[in-house]
């Protein structure tokens, strides 16, 4: 029994050690997919609910959810890059990589997705890109 607990604990610790490089790779993958989608996106004037520029640390995951759901709503997952990006934004490594919140109490103050004003698609993609870059600049 003790041996099993010890092995499980070791596996858990190892997973923590390896998480950072995997999160980094995942976020870099999200950036690549986003750049491909931006390049091929035809209508940059389309208006979409966009989280604000200044997102609190504890509201980043809420903003991520908003970006993902808006993408699904506007474009669906029929396109090659849309599908890849949606899956990547839904990945556990992406979520853990963009979780900047150290406390659990602040999430209730985050705005809902529909309350965000609509911005152009180009601005939508730029803010999503900034969010991912912010995550990468925090990972060691």
């Amino acid at each position, binding site marked *: 029994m003790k041996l099993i607990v010890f092995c499980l604990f070791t596996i858990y610790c190892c997973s923590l050690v390896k998480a950072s490089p995997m999160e980094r790779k995942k976020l870099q993958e999200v950036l690549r997919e986003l750049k491909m989608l931006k390049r091929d996106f035809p209508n940059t004037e389309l208006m979409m609910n966009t989280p604000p520029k200044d997102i609190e640390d504890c509201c980043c995951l809420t903003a991520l959810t908003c970006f993902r759901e808006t993408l699904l709503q506007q474009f669906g997952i029929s396109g090659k890059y849309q599908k890849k990006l949606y899956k990547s934004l839904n990945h556990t490594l992406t979520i853990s990589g963009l979780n900047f919140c150290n406390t659990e109490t602040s999430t209730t103050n985050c705005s809902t997705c529909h309350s965000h004003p609509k911005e152009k698609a180009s601005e939508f993609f730029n803010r999503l890109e*900034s969010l991912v870059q912010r995550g990468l600049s*925090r990972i060691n």
Partner: protein
Amino acid sequence: QPDCFYFSVLLDLCLLKKKSPDVDCLVVNLDYVSCKWNKTGTPEVNYTFYSKLGNDQWKICNHYLTENNVNIGCNQQVDSGDRFKTFRTRLTNGSENFEKGHELKKQVKLNPPTNLTVLNGSDFNLWFYWNHTSPAPLHCVEGEVRFRTNNNNWDFSKVSAGIQKYCINLPSSSSRYELQVRNRIDDSCGESIFWSDWSEPVVWGSNNSTYSKDLMSPWTPVIYLVGVISFILLAMLLMHHERLRIILVPVVPKPSPFLHNIEDWFQFSKGLKDNFKPDYNERACPVREYNYVSQSDVVSSDGSTCSVTTDQTDCSIEHDPEDLSSPFPSNPVSSEEVQKASV
């Protein structure tokens, strides 16, 4: 009067626009934000500076930059992640209030890399290593290297993010290598538009090496001299020995429909050329076997001797012994030798 009113309003607006200071902000090494408002010259008044990051409260400046006792800028401490938030600045002077928003994500200038060292690797390559002092993670910092050999032109090379070394393959031991490096934030972390300054240079190689591009060996002038002398000797040899010249430099015939004589195709000397003339006539020199006959045998014969009277001058061809071009040199034969040779 309405015209005067509008004119004064316009004048006030123009003056106001002239007076409003322009604030420029730069994130230095991801440690602090440096804002200045002296781009158009030292301000006439002392402004009070406030800044606001994202949704935070306004903060007053606690470290001003001054020039002639006038505030011209402010340094404000920030966290590395704060550049992704909107940075607002406010300059106040009494009732005057100038606010401006800044996007600091790309307005970053890192300090130059430090501890630039060089090592001669076991693979006989030259390895350069350096560090960076900003709090940015290693995978967020990309570099650029410039190096030169023997003070020639600089060669530039990009170094990918996360790498802090550079290699020069198989360097020459007689050359001098100088290298510098600079860095900036990588695209994956919000690419900065400014490169850092170049680091302090590091030098490797011979201090006594000459900086000329071609280092001359001491044997080179000797080899050149030997070559020139050999060439002169060969030219002299060829000028005086036609046969040798023909062997070494074969004559290429130049056929022409207008030249009927084949010897005209070749550039031979006159003596050699004469030998090819169709009307050339050379008398054959008769060769007889010597047979000593006693006097008694000569008398008892019926007189039908086989002696052939020959022209004494048959074989005496005028011959210049120095003329080597004549293929058929003949020796003068005396008349006595002709008689002896009767069959």
